């Protein structure tokens, strides 16, 4: 992949090209991203690609600290955004870039767009949050699992119910989880729509069945990784 950053990039990184590919998967909470990533990963490995996958809050540095802070509900949106930025930076520098250098296909469960959306919905300055992520690599593909509330609600209820943060209970001002969830997720969906235009998301219709979603993803992923495979003449 061509090494491009959204802003000034990272200190000490002057590479122009990595042999690997960076594919990011975005979409609302509960849409089925992790399931699809598990399927795509296996599919790619079966086809002979080395795959590395990562997701928010999985950094060695900041994962435990964020979990702890979320338990206490003591974080304001600004502090939370910066904590997630530290988590993301740690994974980018110590997992994603080394894997790309080694020629891996890196699949990420969410990327900066979710973090930008959460910050914007919580009232932080859109220009400010974008400038923070000036160190983020521009991915080869941003696959967006597009869905609507009508299809999301049953999936969330079947899976784990409404989560405090995924319902925006930290700031929306509703007492009732369900009302808060609906209002928060609708705002997130609207924000993702705008980000999709700004950053060039490739939409995957995620209202469909798991098989149909996977079929679309396979095509999209093949488009990205295709040139990694030398053509046999």
């Amino acid at each position, binding site marked *: 992949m061509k090494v491009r950053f959204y802003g000034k990039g990272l200190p000490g990184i002057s590479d122009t090209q990595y042999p690997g590919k960076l594919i990011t998967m975005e979409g609302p909470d509960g849409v089925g991203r992790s399931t699809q990533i598990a399927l795509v990963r296996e599919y790619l490995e079966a086809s002979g690609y080395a795959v590395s996958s990562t997701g928010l809050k999985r950094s060695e*540095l900041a994962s435990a*600290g*964020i979990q702890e802070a979320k338990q206490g509900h003591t974080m304001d949106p600004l502090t939370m955004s910066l904590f997630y*930025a530290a988590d993301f930076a740690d994974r980018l520098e110590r997992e994603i870039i080394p894997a790309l250098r080694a020629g891996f296909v890196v699949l990420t469960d969410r990327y900066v767009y979710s973090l930008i959306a959460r910050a914007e919905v919580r009232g932080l300055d859109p220009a*400010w949050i974008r400038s923070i992520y000036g160190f983020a690599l521009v991915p080869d593909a941003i696959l967006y699992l597009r869905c609507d509330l009508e299809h999301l609600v049953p999936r969330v209820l079947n899976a784990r119910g409404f989560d405090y943060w995924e319902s925006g209970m930290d700031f929306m001002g509703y007492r009732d989880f369900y009302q808060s969830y609906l209002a928060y997720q609708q705002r997130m969906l609207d924000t993702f729509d705008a980000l999709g235009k700004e950053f060039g998301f490739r939409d995957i219709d995620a209202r469909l069945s798991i098989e149909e979603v996977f079929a679309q993803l396979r095509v999209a992923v093949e488009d990205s990784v295709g040139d990694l495979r030398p053509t046999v003449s």
Partner: protein
Amino acid sequence: MAKLCTGEELPGKLFVVEGIDGSGKSTQLDLLRKWLVATGYCVAFSEWNSSSLVSTTTKRGKKRQLLTPTTFCLMHAVDFSHRMQQQVIPALKAGAIVLADRYIYTAFARDAARGVDPEWVRKIYAFAPIPTVALYFRVPLEESLRRIITGRPSLKYYEAGMDLGLSDDTLESYRIFQARIQREYEQLVTEYGLVVVDATLPIVNQQDIVRSIIRPHLEGALRAESNAWRNVLSAEHLSGHYLEGLVGGREAQ
């Protein structure tokens, strides 16, 4: 007045001290706090890298040497943001005096010394309230090193800037790192109008200077009856020995 980044003026006053390690700024801030409290002001205090929210993460990062210039910078920003939202901004809104031991200029100086893009760091901290007065304690590098090396057992990995690979020798690495930070600070003095205090003067003289700089800004600051119990003790002829340990640690120091 302290100001929010939005330009909104807050009734409180924010005084910050800056300088390289061993410049004596913490000593001066402590003396300033004691004077302000004794004069009857309501004083809040906030120290760099002290938020409980990030302490486990920062400790982990340091112990396992996970921190890069970028993540180190961001972790300090998390700490700073948490302290601003929870301690500093509320106190300033209430009209109190807030004393900060190190502020955004520490990040600007240290992160730039670590090779982080200075403009990016300034953008991160765009949310920081603008201080009423920011003091910079200027000290020659050799003098500060002498103070640090005699006063402390050993330099820690990140403290000495060992992550930058400047030298295999801890002391030499620290010297080079501090020199870089000092250069950055000197630029910040003009960029942000930091008020320079000669940190080679005797402690008492420095404190006189500090108080004379701060005094004109105190008008209207919130006052607190922090020592009201003293009046009770003297009126009732009590010794107050059960109060020991109850009175806030800061005041008791």
